[in-house]
């Protein structure tokens, strides 16, 4: 039994590993328009791009962040989750842009949608932050980072300004996320968290809606390549 389990685990690890290895070698595109641009212009361009990738174009990432916020009304809870998510997506974003790992969009995008489903349903099952939730958010962050990389790859990076562009993009994404968290906490969570109907009226319906939308995206991305 133990041997069988080991074999299955090995198989899965190999399968997942081959996903990434098979893709190594595809070069990321180059942004020739910003090749000779001054650094401040490059920083501003990628910062704006990162922000826009969350607000307004990253509706899936917005729902994920809302999902993270709905677990608990405690600021610390969102702080740990957001930190784990940020560290993780920064790692895979940089590694993907460096071509160290490049996963295919047809795998990354459905898993991003599934991660939203998971977080939303988990919000209905848990009431407080568990250590494994932070670990899971970290793992999901790794996947989201690859999604960010594919968006960044569409525009490309100017050669010689790799770190400047990636850091600026990441900063834009962070500011976008912080904006979502601030608005949600400021407008909904802080004013309503002490109401005894908070979970019943806010957390459950919102999480259910998020899960449904994300499930729809999963189907769309798996079967219709949208």
């Amino acid at each position: 039994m133990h041997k069988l389990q080991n074999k299955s685990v090995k198989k899965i690890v190999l399968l997942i590993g081959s996903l990434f290895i098979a893709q190594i070698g595809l070069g990321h595109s180059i942004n020739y328009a910003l090749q000779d641009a001054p650094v401040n212009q490059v920083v501003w361009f990628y910062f704006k791009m990162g922000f826009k990738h969350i607000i307004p174009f990253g509706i899936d990432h917005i729902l994920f962040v809302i999902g993270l916020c709905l677990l608990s009304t405690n600021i610390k809870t969102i702080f740990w989750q957001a930190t784990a998510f940020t560290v993780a997506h920064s790692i895979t974003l940089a590694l993907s842009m460096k071509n160290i790992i490049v996963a295919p969009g047809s795998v990354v995008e459905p898993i991003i949608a599934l991660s939203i489903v998971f977080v939303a349903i988990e919000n209905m099952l848990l009431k407080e932050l568990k250590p494994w939730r932070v670990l899971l958010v970290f793992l999901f962050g790794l996947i989201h980072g690859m999604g960010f990389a594919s968006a960044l790859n569409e525009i490309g990076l100017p050669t010689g300004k790799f770190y400047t562009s990636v850091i600026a993009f990441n900063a834009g994404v962070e500011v976008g996320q912080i904006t979502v968290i601030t608005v949600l906490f400021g407008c909904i969570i802080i004013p309503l968290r002490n109401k005894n109907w908070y979970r019943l009226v806010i957390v459950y319906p919102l999480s259910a809606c998020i899960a449904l939308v994300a499930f729809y995206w999963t189907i769309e991305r798996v079967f219709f390549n949208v």
Partner: protein
Amino acid sequence: MLYFILIAFFIGAVSFVIIKFKKEDTARENTQYGLLQRNGSLAQMPEWEINKLNATKLLNAINANPKDLKSQISLANLFIMEARTTGNYTYYDKAAMKNIDNVLKIDAQNFEALTLKSLLYLSQHHFADGLAMATKAQNINPYNAFVYGILVDGNVEMGNYDSAVANAEKMMSIRPDLRSYARASYLREIYGDYPGAIEAMKLAVDAGVAGEESTEWCRVQLGHLYENSGDNKNAEMNYTIALDNRKNYAYALAGLARIALSNKNYDKAINYYKQADSLVNDFSFKEELVDVYQLTGQKDKAAAISKTVIYEMNKNAASAASDENIGHYADRELAYAYLKINEVDKALDHALAEYNRRPKNIDANETLAWVYYQKGAYAKAIPYMKVALKTNSKNPVLLCRAGLIYEKTGDKVKAKEYLEQAFKNNATLPELLKLHSEQALKEI
């Protein structure tokens, strides 16, 4: 319990996504492409039976020995030629790329495979990748004229015109033939030397065998150069000869359509365009047909074709997003297509995407400048138009657009200069552009 169900569901779903991808990937790996049945008069062409026979032989050879690199490359070549004849670049470029990748997996330094791969990249408008790949091939064999041809094309598309000229000179010194003369002609045209371009294209035509696709393509290009120089008589003659030498040659038919259009013979132009469109899948025929329909007040027909063109181009572009190896970038074409249906914001998105990929290219700059003009952002159009004019191209359409942009920004001197240059040779111009340019010139 519920939590464990959730975890099990998640692991199951992720595994399903990965296994599905791997299965599809394996299926893609194992796909062996063949020739698609030609339709209509293309199926009557003499080379079709030979091509089919060759394809069968090559496929059998590859099935018997997948490491038969020579057959893999020959089949890729056959697909590339078939793409050119039928206009089905989406299918045949993918098919050729598959064989080339098979070769490169076995021999990563295979010169022929690298040159063909760079050619395919250019065909799919992945210009930077094409140029990089051609440079790699050139390092392996610096004495091959064909690879210099690809370098010329790649450098032109990336806007490195000086390098393109140097590559063309090298190509000519290695092998002065149809391909090198055609490139010399194209470069002279870009630099505004129409008489020189015509002279070089005549040499290209003379160097080829009458009736062969490459020769007749050059003849059509020669006709187009005459058109842009205002010599419609010679243009028409070249299109007619091309059509005589190669029956139903779509590009010659499109040339005759333009001549009919300039003579205001709209029905004749529509018929020629329809004929060309039925033969080869080239969006430019449809785009030009849209112009004629708009001119003749057939707005519904124009809108319907425009929508089809946009849909098809977006579909091809989507394959570029999902597969970095292949997939046609068509942002410049999409920008113009969206302009035709007055969706200027979408046109701007595509014009910017094209510009970001090749900011030094004169065509990409012209497109962006023209989209800004259509958007009413005249001052924004100026820097891009300046880049578009940097080679002193005398293309009448470009000059009209430059004139109109300068006129709107209040620079009457430059506007007059460009508009007068555009009309100097009485070249064929799109009707609406001509009308607006004439009005602007009168007002100045």
